[in-house]
């Protein structure tokens, strides 16, 4: 599977990579801000999940989520951010994220969030196909 990691911190992207590589055969793509992420998405790779940080230069995560959702309602998006206030979580959900994980997180916590999100997306896909 392909996973896109969007965070302006290379350290954080490496931490996520280390944890999520235990999912199995994973190819990672990376972006340091929302604009770079859109360029990566524009190459046509189908991502199983996109991890999005909120506070980034050039284009922040919430703007990126809204941009993605203009044309793609299906790709699972997970906000991984220090923004923990209820208002921020609601704003992200309204923008179209499927899940939310607050930094700091343990490797197990982020892995579990991604597994939950993938499982839910897999459950939704057969239902959509049958409809």
């Amino acid at each position, binding site marked *: 599977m392909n996973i896109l990691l969007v965070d302006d911190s*290379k*350290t954080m992207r490496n931490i996520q990579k280390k944890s999520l590589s235990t999912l199995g055969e994973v190819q990672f793509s990376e972006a340091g801000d929302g604009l770079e992420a859109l360029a990566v998405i524009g190459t046509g790779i189908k991502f199983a999940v996109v991890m999005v940080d909120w506070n980034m*230069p050039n284009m922040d995560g919430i703007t990126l989520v809204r941009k993605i959702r203009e044309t793609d309602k299906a790709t699972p998006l997970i906000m991984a951010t*220090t923004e923990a206030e209820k208002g921020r979580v609601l704003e992200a959900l309204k923008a179209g994220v499927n899940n939310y994980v607050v*930094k700091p997180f343990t490797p197990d916590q982020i892995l579990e969030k991604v597994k939950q999100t993938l499982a839910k997306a897999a459950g939704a896909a057969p239902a959509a196909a049958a409809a």
Partner: protein
Amino acid sequence: MNVAYINPFITGTREVFDAMIRMPCAVGKPRLRETDERSHKLYSISVVIGLSGSVSGLLVMNLAEGVALSMASALAGEPAKSLNADTFDALAEIANMIAGAAKKQLPQGQVTITVPTLLRTPDVVYPTGQPVLSLPFDCPTGRFTLEISMRDTGRRVA
């Protein structure tokens, strides 16, 4: 500065150290920074994060090189051998997470934090007319400080 401002930064630091740095870290006695205090005698690197919204001010994390390298190594999970771009990135992310974990607990409500800036400690400029609280933390490789200068703006964001 009251304890409602202090405790979020202590618990925020502990959360980051427990979850991601996985190193013990004990807070020392808080004190007010002296106006002419020369932190650069003890520390050489500072990470600065601006605070705005319902509060206005700065968070400054001051470190000596050895502590900086050990914290960056612990977060990244691989040795940081010098103060290079990767090390600075790790330090910035540590400060970012501490500020983020703290701000959700501040009593005033929604606070916005800036992208971290790395500076040489002597180059840090503190807001004038505001006290600066200094929180020392001791971890296995040495001491670092969080300095918080913050005032309530009276603005409340829903």
